[in-house]
């Protein structure tokens, strides 16, 4: 498991360098063949027995912020990159730019808020990043427009086999994919660490174009809605209940026969699974299945609470179940006669 290292790296969509470099080094360590494509996807190849072309995808990028303006007092105005949960931004610690300048997201104090403003989450244009400077010039020495900003959030293991960190969506997928590549299975697959999923499944599209997979397996951190106020039928996935298999989302109607096959593999191997029961959201599968002549796809996800915030929570048991299930699915699809 590489989650501590992976979640503490910065990799906002379009600027995945740190994550990519980490993955490249790991791939060298385990002696796995790979190349980097034009958009920055890492495409690794695990050679082995082969019936079909399998592409296993996990995205490297995370949601974050980007600097758009520095005001006369040296405070930084920013925009969201990807679907940031605006409610959680205020009072967060962030790291700005390549030099990781520490900053805090601030707004005017609660005493100064009008009645209407109190009790509501502030929209992004009312927030700013404070890096402790007090002039435009001083800030400009440290930060430029276009610098990416990511949350600062330590990886923590706590409670009953739970983990907390930022960017679990989708460093959990990256970590599992690295583990799968380390296993040196006698089953052929491409392990693709994609870029720019959070801004519209962009990396996966070009990667699938190159590889023309017959089967795409997408490893994701997905939304868990197992909070007490949510009705049972709205709980998209439940943390601790195993690998989540998607049936439909905004980007893909999954081939139900393929999904049921994966469920059967889980049952046969005593792997805990659940269905992801929401029609909303979307992931790299949406791009992969529609590329060129088309492909079968399946999404195997780890439920994450508080996703797209700086403090996502996931279960190590779910992680293990996704890892085991993905391995079995690859082996089953590439087994000999």
């Amino acid at each position, binding site marked *: 498991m590489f989650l501590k290292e992976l979640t503490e790296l910065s990799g906002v969509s379009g600027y995945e360098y740190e994550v990519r470099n980490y993955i490249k080094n790991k791939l060298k360590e385990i002696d796995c063949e790979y190349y980097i494509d034009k958009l920055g996807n890492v495409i690794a190849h695990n050679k082995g027995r082969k019936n079909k072309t399998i592409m296993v995808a996990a995205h490297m990028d995370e949601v974050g912020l980007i600097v758009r303006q520095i005001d006369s007092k040296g405070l930084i105005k920013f925009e969201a990159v990807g679907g940031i949960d605006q409610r959680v931004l205020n009072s967060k610690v962030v790291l700005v730019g390549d030099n990781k300048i520490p900053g805090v997201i601030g707004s005017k104090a609660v005493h100064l808020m009008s009645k209407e403003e109190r009790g509501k989450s502030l929209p992004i244009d009312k927030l700013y990043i404070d890096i402790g400077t007090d002039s435009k010039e001083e800030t400009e020495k440290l930060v430029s427009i276009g610098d990416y900003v990511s949350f600062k959030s330590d990886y923590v293991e706590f409670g009953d086999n739970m983990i907390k960190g930022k960017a679990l969506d989708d460093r959990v997928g990256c970590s599992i994919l690295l583990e799968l590549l380390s296993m040196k299975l006698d089953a052929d697959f491409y392990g693709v660490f994609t870029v720019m999923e959070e801004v519209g499944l962009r990396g996966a599209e070009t990667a699938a174009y190159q590889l023309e997979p017959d089967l795409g397996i997408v490893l994701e951190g997905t939304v868990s809605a197992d909070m007490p106020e949510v009705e049972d*039928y709205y709980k998209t996935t439940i943390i601790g209940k195993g690998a989540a298999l998607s*049936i*439909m989302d905004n980007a893909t*109607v999954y081939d139900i026969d393929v999904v049921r096959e994966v469920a059967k593999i889980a049952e046969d191997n005593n792997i805990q699974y659940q*269905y992801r029961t929401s029609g909303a959201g979307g992931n790299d599968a949406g791009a992969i299945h529609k590329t060129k*002549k*088309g492909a079968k796809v399946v999404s195997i996800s780890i439920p994450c609470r508080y996703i797209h915030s700086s403090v996502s929570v996931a279960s190590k048991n779910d992680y293990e179940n996704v890892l085991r299930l993905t391995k079995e699915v690859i082996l089953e699809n590439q087994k000999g006669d």
Partner: protein
Amino acid sequence: MFNSELMKKLSDCFGPSGREKYIRELIIDEIKDYVDEISTDPLGNLIARKKGSGKKIMFSAHMDQIGLIVTHVDEKGFLRFTNVGGLKAKNLLGLHMVFANGLEGVICQEELKDKEKLTMGKLFLDVGVTDKEFVKQNFRVGDMCVFKSQYYETEDCVICKAADDRVGCYILIEALKNHPNTDNDVYYVFSVQEEVGCRGAKTAGYSINPDLAIAVDVTATGDTPDEIIMEVKLDGGAAIKIKDNSLIVHPEVKDMLTYLSEKNNIKYQYEILEFGGTDAGPIHLSREGVPSGVISIPTRNLHTSGEIFSKKDVEECIKLVRAAAGH
């Protein structure tokens, strides 16, 4: 002569987006003796070919229909669901639905004070079974269901479910059975997953790589009380599309379809749709680009269990498809 038996079979066949197996099998059965080649691609598109050495033409009508997908089966034996394709909660109340296995259910709502606030989450399916174990065994998360409604026909019109786009499939099947004598290399595609974003047409367009593409699909009309302002009407003939949200029809394709209509005495009307899109959307952007157009069937009450179209319009559309295939 309108082939009522075929239209009824097509309308009654189960096939929501992503679950097109039965409708695909039905169409294969219907056309296999008339085509030179027939294949199914990875997403499930049915691609039938009448071989030729000339221009490569692709017709596309989608097989899938709108429906619902089960997201939760509760302890009491009720099913929760979400929509597959363009359906609104307020249009679903009280409707009868049917699953692939033939089991049925009716759409009920939780008690609501404010009807305007009705959302999909407040609706559930009652499958009329008190044996909870039976419900658990026979209804699973991921199962889909579609409208159940009786096919009905008058002298002029058909009222049925899934006219969108089984009437397009009907038109392609009838055109294919009377394929013109031509050098053109013609592909009749029965596509999947149009209702969730024209996904099948994207991959089929890529595989076929045609010189010309024409989608055959239903369009809205402006001829009912309080309807949208739109020129298209029932009995106005085949509708030649000019634009919708997914496509501005290539002027040469529009001109060609107009020319063919006039030359062959085919009744036609022009269509500008201010919403929606068809298979021609992704196809015309495929690879280096494909000049594309749409022949539309004027249809009232779209995306409901009773869509209404005119049999005369359908005949005109068949003639126009044949003319385009042979041009």
